[in-house]
């Protein structure tokens, strides 16, 4: 696939890094020559310097042949103009743009019927906000990911002593929860994946990924550990794009929210914008401030600034001062690894990892509607639509056990006309089913893609 990426910022680079490994042909456009040189040294791709909305620059970048343009510069206007130019002059098949300003997003009619010809609008801030919000909803989970518009969720949870299933074979789950269906897609034990069978015995400290209908998540989770009390009090550090959005969402629900920002002006702005949230001006790593604001009664503390070091420090401090759970955004991959193995910060979120899936979904061959990158990019969960019939498809008309899946790949669930069907060996896949798969090894993705592609005879 030939892809043009506009903007060598954080989003652009992390996409480029991911796609270069997947044998895509990538050209990055940016105005900053130094930045481009740095990428060129590190990654096998082409770069073009200039304004990516200009026809000549796009042409130089290979727009005549490109299958996709990904406009992720910091300027909404450049992104919009670039998609318009690509559409009109180059008929670029897929146009994806990052749009941040709610001034545009509040008018979805701008983007329908090709008025502004963008096929997919991505908002990394919104994706992250949703991601964190789901973790606040399920404080016992390490990860909660949506499929089929939220009908099905993939949840990662750490098994603890005291969970009724811990020490038992997976098949005991049926007896424990006779009215609930779920599928354990993978288990990570001491960081190594196990593809589970009915005989697999769950051990304490296992990281278990299970798939279930949304309404069953809590019940399944309670089999693996004692559930945390629901979250009530939340403290957010950082009033930037994410902190602000998250506060706005949370304050409308049952949560009591405090937001700390060290920038006085921004704290004031945020305070005006938010209704119930208590906005504080100060340093989130200030012991006195945290104590005064009742950190020891706080259910979850989220460090959401742009500064990794500040996030890590404030989260560690909050934990030490008694916050029940702490979560931190961490941009640098190496820090995420450090923190994950350390254990004092309950959840470290890499913004790149959390958002890359929304882009990968459009790069995957076949009709893939959702992708979530997991385990620092080593694993992947995808939702693919099965098309065709017994003749043109390798999955339609077959039972799950007869689908030639690559090793380490599990079909977890199927969504058929908005009904969630947990996959069992004898579940038959029908045309138009949304199939949710878990791959412990992302390198097998090409095989899975092939599986879901229809043969030439599909008309």
């Amino acid at each position, binding site marked *: 696939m030939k892809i043009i990426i506009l903007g060598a910022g954080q989003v652009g680079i992390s996409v480029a890094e991911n796609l270069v490994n997947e044998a895509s042909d990538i050209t990055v456009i940016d105005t900053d020559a130094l930045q481009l040189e740095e990428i060129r040294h590190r990654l096998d791709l082409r770069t073009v310097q200039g304004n990516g909305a200009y026809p000549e620059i796009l042409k130089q970048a290979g727009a005549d*042949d490109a299958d996709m343009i990904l406009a992720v510069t910091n300027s909404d206007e450049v992104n919009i103009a670039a998609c318009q130019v690509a559409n009109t002059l180059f008929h670029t098949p897929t146009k994806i743009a990052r749009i941040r300003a709610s001034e545009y997003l509040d008018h979805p009619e701008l983007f329908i019927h090709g008025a502004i010809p963008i096929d997919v609008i991505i908002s990394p801030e919104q994706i992250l906000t949703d991601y964190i919000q789901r973790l606040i909803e399920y404080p016992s989970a390490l990860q909660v990911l949506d499929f089929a518009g939220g009908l099905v969720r993939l949840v990662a949870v750490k098994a603890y002593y005291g969970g009724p299933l811990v020490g038992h074979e997976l098949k005991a789950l049926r007896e424990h929860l006779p009215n609930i269906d779920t599928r354990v897609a993978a288990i990570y034990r001491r960081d190594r994946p196990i593809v589970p069978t009915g005989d697999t015995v769950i051990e304490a400290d296992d990281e278990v990924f299970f798939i279930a209908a949304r309404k069953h998540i809590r019940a399944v989770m309670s089999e693996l550990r004692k559930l945390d009390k629901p979250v009530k009090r939340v403290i957010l550090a950082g009033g930037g794009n994410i902190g602000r959005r998250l506060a706005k969402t949370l304050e409308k629900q049952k949560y009591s929210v405090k937001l700390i920002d060290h920038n006085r002006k921004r704290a004031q702005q945020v305070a005006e914008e938010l209704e119930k949230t208590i906005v504080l001006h100060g340093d989130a790593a200030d012991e006195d401030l945290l104590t005064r604001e009742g950190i020891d009664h706080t259910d979850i503390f989220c460090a959401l600034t742009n500064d990794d070091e500040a996030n890590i420090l404030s989260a560690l401090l909050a934990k030490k001062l008694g916050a029940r759970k702490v979560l931190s955004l961490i941009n640098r991959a190496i820090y995420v690894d450090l923190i994950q193995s350390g254990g004092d910060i309950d959840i470290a979120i890499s913004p790149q990892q959390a958002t890359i899936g929304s882009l990968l979904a459009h790069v995957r*061959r076949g*009709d893939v509607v959702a992708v979530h990158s997991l385990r620092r990019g080593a694993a992947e969960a995808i939702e693919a639509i099965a098309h065709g019939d017994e003749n043109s498809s390798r999955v339609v008309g077959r039972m799950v056990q007869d689908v030639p899946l690559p090793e380490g790949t599990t079909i977890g669930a199927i969504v058929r006309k908005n009904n969630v069907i947990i996959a069992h060996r004898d579940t038959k896949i029908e045309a138009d089913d949304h199939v949710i798969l878990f791959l412990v090894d992302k390198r097998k993705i090409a095989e899975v893609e092939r599986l*879901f*592609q229809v*043969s*030439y*005879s599909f*008309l």
Partner: protein
Amino acid sequence: MQLQELISPERIEFSMPVTSKKRLLEQLSTLMHADEPGLDEYAAFQSLLDRERLGSTGIGHGVALPHGRLKGLDKAIGAFATLEKEVDYDSIDHEPIKMVFALLVPEQATEDHLQLLARIANVLNDDATRAKILGANNKEEIYQYLTNREAG
């Protein structure tokens, strides 16, 4: 329906100069539009693209059969091209393609259309026919090879 009715020398291009799958599908749409001005070029391109997304129509041996349904079309229309240079097409055998037969059918595609597709595949699966087409010097010769094989 016979292949003669599906294709005409006007909708055949000899040694098409394209460098990508995207350009190829675009050019094929243009080729069909030039001979059938009523056909919406961009919609045709979009239809071919949408179908490719579900799975490549590269059938191996350097051949691709892109196809799609098109609103407002009242009969099936084909176009054919040999390529100046091989193009990567994500084919079933991972080989780049050298020739391409595009087919657009009415939105309400029928069993007949499926048969048509199978027939085209059948013709181009034949080693001797492919060799002749690749050895041709112009589109008239290609037209002969494509349609003769059918008649015989």
